[in-house]
């Protein structure tokens, strides 16, 4: 699976206790889109699993569909408030004038690019040639061509996974912690948690101009992070992921903000 590597790896490094990690990366000159811009939101890639007591993630289709619907609604609401002109495509064949294959190819390329950004900027495998601040990744001509054909200025790609911990597991967790105190630490069976990333691509250049990762985790089940199956939870994730788009480093420096 394209995203399996990241998700699995992150599952291994779920943070202690409960916390939310969010980190944004942007082109140095990036300014969040405002005013009359046209935004294409690519098929949000959403999966909601129920983590049963045995630790087996059970992909719950009904939860997934719920979450996806709420995420799409939250995206629409958020973008409407921003005053942009947004189309959110739920299926590859919904983009007029563009074939499914073209959409699919762009999704695949982005998966490789998105995973690379996560790996090399967020997860620690730094590349010395990449700037410390700023983002230096692109989707290239394929994205520019899409923009030309459809007239959109930006494309937003989104990936979200959530693991909802069942109550049977809560009981076990207590056991595990107790075990730790006695001296034997039961390894983390993976609490609940979200992993999501969003990237904004400027379709004039094909460059990824903004990228955000949200990782929430809890080894202590019972600490909830806004269930994305509910409208509020989905809105919260969308807000964390795409709401506070900060300008790029040089723009912030120039305007004296940080």
């Amino acid at each position, binding site marked *: 699976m394209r995203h399996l590597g990241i998700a699995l790896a992150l599952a291994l490094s779920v*943070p202690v206790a409960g916390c939310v*990690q969010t980190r944004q990366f942007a082109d140095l000159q990036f300014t969040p889109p405002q005013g009359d811009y046209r935004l294409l939101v690519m098929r949000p890639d959403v999966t909601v699993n129920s983590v049963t007591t045995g630790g087996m993630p059970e992909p719950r289709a009904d939860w997934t569909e719920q979450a996806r619907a709420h995420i799409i609604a939250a995206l629409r609401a958020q973008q409407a408030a921003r005053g942009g002109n947004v189309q959110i495509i739920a299926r590859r064949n919904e983009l007029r004038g563009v074939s499914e294959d073209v959409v699919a190819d762009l999704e*695949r390329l982005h998966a490789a690019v998105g995973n690379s950004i996560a790996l*090399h900027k967020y997860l620690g495998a730094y590349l010395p040639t990449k700037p410390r601040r700023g983002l230096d990744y692109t989707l290239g001509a394929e994205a520019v061509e899409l923009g030309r054909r459809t007239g959109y200025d930006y494309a937003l790609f989104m990936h979200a996974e959530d693991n909802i911990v069942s109550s049977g597991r809560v009981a076990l967790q207590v056991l595990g912690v107790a075990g730790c105190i006695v001296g034997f630490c039961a390894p983390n069976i993976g609490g609940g948690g979200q992993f999501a990333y969003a990237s904004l691509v400027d379709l004039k250049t094909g460059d990824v101009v903004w990228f955000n990762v949200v990782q929430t985790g809890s080894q202590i089940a019972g600490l909830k992070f806004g269930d994305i199956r509910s409208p509020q939870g989905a809105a919260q994730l969308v807000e964390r992921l795409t709401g506070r788009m900060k300008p790029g480093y040089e723009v912030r420096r120039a305007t004296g903000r940080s």
Partner: protein
Amino acid sequence: MTRTPKLLLAALALAVAGCSSTGGGGIGSEYYSLVRVRSIHVGDGSMAVTAPRPWNRTRTSIFSFEDVRQVEDWTLNGPLLDNISFITGLRNNRQIIYQRRTEDRQVPRFRSDMSAPEITAMLETFFRTRAGSIEFRTLSLKPRLFLGANGFQFDFEHLDSDELWRRGRAVGAVIDGRLYLILFDAARSHYYANSIGDFEAIVASARRRR
């Protein structure tokens, strides 16, 4: 010549479990070091090349039994997107990657009497068994001088299990019974074209050292 997953997990094992690990500068370039724009020795040192712009080379360790001394990997944007690999002075009966004797599917060993078609077949099996290639196509095989010897240029593309098409070029020659080869492999969309020029410059600059 490895795809990412192992690196990913290794990185994560080191990434601190805690809210501080949002990817600050802490770990630094643990996995990669900088290739500067000057003549440098690659692989086991028997070949020198000059990159036209800075690249990243994968750090290897003499303690890692999985690294093959004669093979070295570089990347510009990360191995999911682009790769250059160097094989320097690989001897008869050696492998280009580490593999256990008991693995079901194995990359063939290099033999000094291999012709270009056999060497390219060895690379193809590498892609099919190690790089997750579902489909592999030879685009062309032609003679080419390399390091002053009669060698070959191999152009290919492959569809991998992440459903992404990648394209590559390898230039190599067998000299004194040893294999010298430079391989470039990148996502077919944008990334191949982005660095093929670098690859050609690197090949042109390649020199053998005693």
